[in-house]
């Protein structure tokens, strides 16, 4: 084989990340920018955060589970703690996106930068 196998990122997450990064870049250029497209792209970001937050919950990072464990998790006791509580960075970004969608405040450059860095790291890009 010519080269080692490249890791494959989840395709749906990459689609969502490409979309939300576009909106964040638009807002970084002009914090008053707004359009239907930007709104849709920010919603993609929300979807992303929810998917990433959920899949990185402690149960998921613990590795493969057998059927018995899976069934046990259905019990109410195992579902008490919100899964996404362990991903604060993700929650921060999700909060920013929620505010932006509600158009409740103008984003700070540092917040946008942090959100962009979060998403580029997620697609595997290393940043500047």
């Amino acid at each position, binding site marked *: 084989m010519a080269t080692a196998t490249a890791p494959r990122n989840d*395709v749906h997450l990459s689609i969502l990340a490409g979309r939300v990064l576009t909106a*964040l870049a638009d807002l970084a250029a002009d914090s008053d920018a707004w359009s239907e497209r930007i709104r849709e792209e920010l919603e993609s970001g929300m979807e992303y955060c929810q998917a990433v937050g959920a899949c990185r919950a402690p149960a998921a990072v613990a590795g493969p589970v057998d059927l018995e464990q899976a069934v046990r998790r259905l019990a109410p006791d195992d579902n008490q703690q919100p899964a996404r509580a362990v991903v604060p960075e993700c929650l921060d970004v999700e909060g920013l996106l929620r505010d932006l969608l509600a158009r409740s405040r103008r984003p700070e450059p540092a917040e*946008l930068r942090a959100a962009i860095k979060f998403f580029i790291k997620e697609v595997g*890009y290393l940043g500047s």
Partner: protein
Amino acid sequence: MTAIPEPRPDNNALERLRVLISLGEAVEKLVRLQQVLGRQRLFVDAREQGSGYAGVIDPLLLVLNGQAETLGRNSARISSLIRGEALDEEQRIALAGIIQAVINVVLTLHELLVLLPREAPEPQVFRVLRDCFKGEWQSTSVIMTNALSSYEYRIEDVLEKLEDIGQHELTRYKGLLKGFTRAGSVLAQAFVDRSNPLAWPVLAHEYGHALDEARGISRQLVYGSEAADRSSNKEFLVKWVSEVFADFVAARVLGPASQIPFLLLEMTRPSLPRGLEEVRSHPPASLRLTLVREYLKHLDVATDEFDGVFAVYEFDYARKLVALDSAEREAKDQREEPIGTFLRSNFATIASAVDSLGLRSFGQQQLENAKELEKKLQLDLPISSLRYTKDDQILSELNSLIGSKSAPERVYEVLSNFNETPATSSEILTAGWLYKLASYEEHLKESFSAATSPTSASLSGYGDYLARTDELLLRSIELAAVHIAIVQG
């Protein structure tokens, strides 16, 4: 020790080129996939309206079109990048992330093409391989496949890769194939590279593996007279040597251009392989490039025209190293140092083993010929042959006959200077790469022209450029073969 790139003006230029190359790869893979699916759609429609295959093709096309739209949405930013205009930090890093996201999507979608009916490879593939490998070429199949299992040379390895993506049932078929694979090799080529001769150097590398395995060259080099033990740690050494051997084979038959498809592929990876992932099967990619460059020096082939891409690759590699945490980076250094020492100490032996094969060797003259051919590509002409006597010289000799009392035979003597010689496949492919590296940026610029629209891109324009380049190269390979047949009578 690892060289960490620092923010310097020349690094900014390298960073811009790195993102441009990534963008070029993203757009190219995207439009080529669209072309593959478009062909499949036509095929399906022609055979049977309402066929179930459309149900596979259409969703894939939809996702690809979405990615084209994402690039289009960023066309103002991309246009600024191509023109070298300053982008603020947020937009610059967001754009690089967007391009990486598109690459991730497109490469993953390519894997799903295994769901579609297979196409046959272009016949020119065999012409190129026969031309490069001469007497060493044994009739070998080329099959189109997904990217994950592409560029293998044994059907067993293709099946192993399919197992990696969950096709566990294939294990028993591997057993069945054991006896068959002794009879020959099967080169696997990615669907997306079917009509793209510039990607074919990878097949030369794979055929290098086939030659190696058939003769046990790397194994012999590692074990010497000792009996081979496939369970020993020395098997890693065999793998590393075999990769360098195959790299040298590709470099010997195709020169510096043999490295470009590998380097572009490596650059589309978002990060370096972690832990032992890479070195289990391959020496580190940066070390391989260093060794190939040394081998090209040994062949007296200059690499000046390709040094720009090599520099961008090295910059990309260095920045990916920086992204590793310090413990991982240190571990990587510690792992790679002995591999480098081992391979460097065996450089001469590997080079000598490759030199002793009966291959058509790429030399400095082929590079010079390729530079001449590139000028014809710029004029949108096929490059199947070279003429050593210039037009001006022939015209001047013909003019000198006007009004002279020379015998009519003298005219034929002058006309015999139309001494066209068929170009070799290696010259055609090298000229193709020289042309592509010199022209892709301009075509990207046209596709993302902010003057047209800040939120749309004409990716089909870039697709036309790629298709025309493919067409010129495919026709050139074909015409050179016809030319040789005519010359040989």
